[in-house]
C-alpha cells in the first residue's frame, strides 16, 4: 500500500480552482517529484497535505489513515516532516537548537520537571544534543553548530530545515522547492544528500520548479498544470510527454 494517497482533492481560492480533483500516490522509500509551471498548484497541494490549509473536497491518507481533518502538529506527530519554500528556520536559536526543536515530540514533557531540571530531562537533553550533532555531521553543518541559525547562508539554512525535519524521525519528508535560491554547487550537494536520505529509508516528496534536479533524483514524477495532473511516471517518460512539453513551452523556458 502506498505511504501517502491523495484522493480527488479540490481547492478553490475565490472561485479559482487551484487544485482540481487531484489524485496522487507516493510509494514507500522512494523519491517522488512534483513539477509544474508557475501557479500550477504545487505549493497549494503541499499546504493541504501538511494541513496548513483545508481542502474544499477530497481526502488524504497517510499509512492508510485518513489525515484530512487533523491539525498540522498532529500530522507531524504521525511522521510527516516538511520544509518550506521560503526558509523558516528558527533564527532566534542556534543551529543545534534548531535540530533539537525537531525532536520536540520525542523528548520528555513537563513544565515542572523541566523547571527543576530533573534527571530524566537532563538525560534527554544530553542524548538529544548528541543526536542533533550526528544529524548536523551528516549534513555537513557541524562546524557551525553554535552559531545563530539566522547567520547561516541560504543554502545552509535549507539544509538545516531538512535536518530539523529529519530530527523528527519522519517516514515522509515533504520538500518544498529545496533548490530555489541555491548555487549550482549547492544544488549538487543537496541532490546527493537527498539521495542519501532515500537510502536511509525515508520517503521524499519533492516539489520543485527546477526540473533538472527532480529529473535526476526522482524515481517517479508527477506534473501539475492548472491544478490538474497532466502526466505521471518515470522521469524519462514524463520528459517525452507532449502535454508536459506544451505546458512548459507556454510558460517559462526550462533547462530540462
Amino acid at each position, binding site marked *: 500500500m502506498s505511504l501517502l494517497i491523495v484522493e480527488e482533492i479540490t481547492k478553490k481560492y475565490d472561485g479559482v480552482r487551484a487544485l482540481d480533483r487531484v489524485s496522487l500516490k507516493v510509494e514507500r522509500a522512494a523519491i517522488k517529484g512534483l513539477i509544474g509551471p508557475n501557479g500550477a498548484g504545487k505549493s497549494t497541494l503541499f499546504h493541504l497535505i501538511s494541513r496548513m490549509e483545508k481542502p474544499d473536497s477530497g481526502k488524504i491518507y497517510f499509512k492508510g489513515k485518513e489525515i484530512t481533518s487533523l491539525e*498540522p502538529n498532529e500530522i507531524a506527530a504521525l511522521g510527516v516532516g*516538511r520544509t518550506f519554500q521560503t526558509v*523558516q528556520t528558527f533564527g*532566534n536559536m542556534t543551529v543545534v537548537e534548531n535540530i533539537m*526543536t525537531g525532536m520536540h*515530540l520525542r523528548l520528555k514533557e513537563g*513544565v515542572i520537571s523541566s523547571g527543576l531540571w530533573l534527571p530524566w530531562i537532563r538525560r534527554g*537533553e544530553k542524548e538529544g544534543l548528541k543526536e542533533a550533532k550526528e544529524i548536523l555531521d551528516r549534513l555537513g553543518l557541524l562546524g557551525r553548530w553554535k552559531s545563530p541559525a539566522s547567520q547561516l547562508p541560504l543554502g545552509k539554512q535549507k539544509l538545516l530545515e531538512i535536518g*530539523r525535519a529529519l530530527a523528527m524521525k519522519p517516514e515522509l519528508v515533504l520538500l518544498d522547492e529545496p533548490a530555489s535560491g541555491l548555487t549550482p554547487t549547492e544544488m549538487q550537494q543537496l541532490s546527493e544528500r537527498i539521495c542519501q536520505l532515500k537510502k536511509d529509508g525515508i520517503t521524499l516528496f519533492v516539489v520543485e520548479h527546477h526540473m533538472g534536479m527532480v529529473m535526476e533524483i526522482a524515481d517517479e514524477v508527477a506534473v501539475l498544470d492548472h491544478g490538474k495532473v497532466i502526466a505521471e511516471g518515470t522521469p524519462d517518460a514524463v520528459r517525452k510527454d507532449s502535454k508536459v512539453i506544451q505546458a512548459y513551452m507556454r510558460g517559462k523556458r526550462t533547462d530540462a
Partner: protein
Amino acid sequence: MVKQSKKEFRKRDFFYLIPLWGLSLIVPDADDLYSYRSKDFKRRELYYLGVLLLLPLIWSDQHFHHLMVLAGIYAILALGLSLFLGYAGQISLGHAAFFGIGAYTTAILTTRYAFPTVLAFWASAVTAAAAAFLIGKPILKLKGYFLALATLGFGEIFLVIVQETQALTGGVIGIFGIPWLSIAGFSFDTYLKQYYLTWGVLLGLFLFSKNLVRSKLGRAFLAVAASEDAAESVGIDVAQIKIKVFVISAAFAGFAGSLFAFIMSTANPGTFSLGFSTLIVMMVILGGMGSLYGPIFGSILLTYLMDILGRYQEWSLPIYGVILILLLIFFPDGIGIRLGIRLIYLIGYWAKKKKRDEGKF
C-alpha cells in the same frame, strides 16, 4: 619591524591583565552574545549571587533595602513577562491584573479566612495561573495588536470587578492589615529580612526559568516566536505552548503580587492599573528581551529611576518620559544586552589598540 616585535610583550602587560581578568568574571563572553544565548550555567553567575547576598549587609541603609525589595518584586513580575514577551514573542498589557489577583488572594485568605501565610503565598500563584488558563484559552488565539488590546481589556475588567465587589475586596479602599509572611514562626518583618525573602524567591524562580528555557519547552517558546508554521511542522502544539507560557508567567505574577501584599500589608486597586502593566513591559523591553538577566536589570533600573525622580515632584513624569525615550533610542535592544556587547567591544579595542598603533593590522 624586528624592533617592534621585541617589544611585543612586557612585564607591565601583566598589570593590564588584572583589571581585564576582573571584568571577564562579570561580563558575558562575546561568544555567548554572538551565538545568541548560551543557556547553561556559568561560573560568573556565582559571583552575581555573592554580590546579591552581601550587598544589603555592606550597604545597610533602610531606604536602599526597601527599594531593592520593590525592585525584586518587580523583577519577579518582569521575569515572568519576559518568558511570555521575550521568549514566546507574545504581548500582554494586562499583567498587572495577575499581579493584582495574587495580591488579593493573599489579602483575602490571610485577613478574612486566617490562612497560614505560606499557604496563601502558594495559593496566590495557583489562583493567578488558573485565571490565566481560563482567559488564555480564548484570547491567545489572537495575535499582535489584537492580543495587546485583549489583555489590556482584561486588566481593566479586573479593576472594575475589584472595585465593584466591595464585600470581598473592600472596593476602592482595598484591604489593610495583611500580616507579615512567616515560615515556621520566623516572620519577615524587617526590610533586611524582606530583601532576602524577595531575592530568594526571585533566585528560585530565576533558576526555574533558566532550566525551562534550556529545555525543550524553552525551544518551543522560541520556535513559536520565530515561526508558528514551522513550529507546527515539527509537531509543536502552538496553542498549547502559548497557554503554557501564559500560565507560567501569570503564576510568577501571582508570586510577586503575594509578596507585594505581604510587604506593603495592603492591597488596593490603584496599584494594579494599566500604568503598572506598561511599567512592567517597559522593564522587560529596557532590560533586554529574550534574556533572563535583562528584566531583572531593567526592574532595578526603573525602580531607582522612579525613586530618584520622586524628588522632583511635578517634574518627575516629564523627566521620566524623556529618559525612557532616550533609553529606547540609544538602547533599542535592551540596556543589558547592548552594554554587554559594548563592553566586550571596548575590551577588544583596548587590547588591540597598541598593535593597531604600531601598524600591525
